[in-house]
């Protein structure tokens, strides 16, 4: 294994570093919203629906991520709209969208003549091949997410905790739901490059599960999640580089190990002495 310092001299590694940082920020913030609001399943639906866009991208010869972006945002808005308006059972509708997106994706990939390059990196993620163009795209979304969550933090918390109460206070609940679910879709799609379709939901939930060991406060949970996601991505990045395995798998592996250690540690500490409690932030 090369020494850490020498890795950083490679351009691709610098790109990977920035990609990991931006993935951590977006997943920390947006993931906390997803977990708190219990829309993990909805987000899973959006993720898999966007695979349809990747397939379509291959078929039409456009950038697959652009296709994923369109499918992701449209399915997010569709879910938000239909689960409120129509009399559809929410979970069955989402499961259908989930499967439908995957089916479209597979069909288009097969219809595309020749070999689909990089298909594996969309499925499993490859943070080591993130290009400067990818970074620009990630940067724009990251800025949008940061700006929105900082500016409207209080209102986001208000409409998320008790939607009905927020409505009785004339809060712009529907508008916020729409913007937030769109940001969820953007975050998912931009992180497909980093951890892949299959594992992107884990990057949006495991850091939050780790933070939840230490805090029950929305804002603190966001900050801690960013930090844990970053630790996990950096550890995963090194794994990925040293053993030549897909970055998605190694990042999630690192995060689950981190969760296991901290959870066991906290349970152990609480057993050890009843007065000795973990610091709650």
């Amino acid at each position: 294994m090369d020494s850490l310092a020498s890795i950083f001299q490679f351009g691709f590694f610098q790109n990977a570093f920035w990609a990991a940082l931006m993935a951590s920020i977006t997943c920390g913030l947006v993931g906390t919203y997803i977990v708190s609001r219990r829309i993990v399943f909805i987000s899973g639906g959006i993720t898999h629906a966007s695979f349809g866009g990747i397939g379509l991208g291959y078929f039409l010869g456009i950038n697959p991520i652009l296709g994923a972006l369109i499918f992701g945002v449209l399915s997010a808005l569709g879910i938000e709209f239909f689960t409120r308006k129509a009399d559809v059972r929410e979970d069955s509708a989402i499961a259908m969208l989930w499967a439908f997106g995957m089916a479209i994706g597979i069909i288009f990939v097969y219809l595309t003549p020749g070999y689909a390059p990089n298909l594996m990196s969309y499925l499993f993620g490859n943070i080591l091949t993130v290009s400067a163009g990818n970074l620009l795209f990630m940067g724009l979304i990251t800025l949008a997410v940061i700006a929105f969550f900082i500016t409207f933090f209080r209102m986001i918390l208000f409409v998320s905790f008790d939607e009905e109460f927020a409505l009785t206070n004339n809060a712009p609940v529907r508008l916020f739901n729409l913007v937030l679910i769109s940001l969820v879709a953007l975050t998912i799609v931009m992180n497909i490059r980093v951890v892949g379709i299959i594992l992107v939901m884990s990057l949006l939930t495991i850091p939050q599960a780790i933070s939840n060991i230490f805090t029950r406060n929305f804002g603190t949970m966001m900050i801690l999640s960013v930090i844990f996601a970053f630790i996990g991505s950096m550890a995963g990045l090194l794994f990925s580089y040293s053993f030549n395995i897909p970055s998605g798998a190694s990042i999630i592996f690192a995060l689950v190990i981190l969760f296991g250690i901290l959870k066991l540690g906290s349970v152990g500490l609480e057993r050890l002495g009843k007065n000795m409690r973990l610091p709650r932030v």
Partner: protein
Amino acid sequence: MESLLEIRNMSAGYEKKVVLSNVNLTVNPEDFIGVIGPNGGGKTTLLKTMLGLLPPIKGEIVFNESMREGSHHHIGYLPQVNRIDKKFPITVFDVVRSGLMSRKRLVGRYSREENERTADLLQKMGIYALRKKAVGELSGGQLQRVLLCRALVNQPKLLILDEPNTYVDNKFERELYERLRILNKDMAIMLVSHDVGTITSYVKTIACVNRNLHYHPSNKISTEQLAAYECPIQIISHGQIPHTVLLQHDH
């Protein structure tokens, strides 16, 4: 004294279904109205329409000038405790001060005055010590007090409660009713309950809701009257309540 709001000839319900029709009701500042009626009679629908969660299908709700002034919102709402997601990562203090959001612009922070007002109210309600706890760490009764603080922090002129007694034990129920009696000196209260026997000793007047609304301008109501209002309700007398004010008709 001027009334707070007037419901005029209102029909209410959902897209495909009219639940309530021809409702007329005036709420005055000193009112304490017990809302009773059978399951599915439309009590929750009535409250939701008053809170602006449902648009009236016909007729109107006219709010008095004092209920509309500024961007303030003058109805406090206490939802059922079981509607709250107890796993949500939010502290007691944040829940309570979110009751002030209706007077906030979209962005900005809570002012020092607002934080102090929140702290004062928590102190008054005896839950200041819980302020840093997450809602998931509270008992049902404590959570209900937190939600009551949220409803009160913006000093509403009307407080609306939907079956506050369903998910808390008897001790908290009694405590809550006693608290409401004191609060009623400063604001009107509308309280939905199935427990007619208990609430009649606290409320001043009764509204029977079953497709229609029959207003009964006293807290003494007999089984026969309930039948006349087409409000089939079982009246259970509670032994531990000192004076049940239900009139049993003698034969």
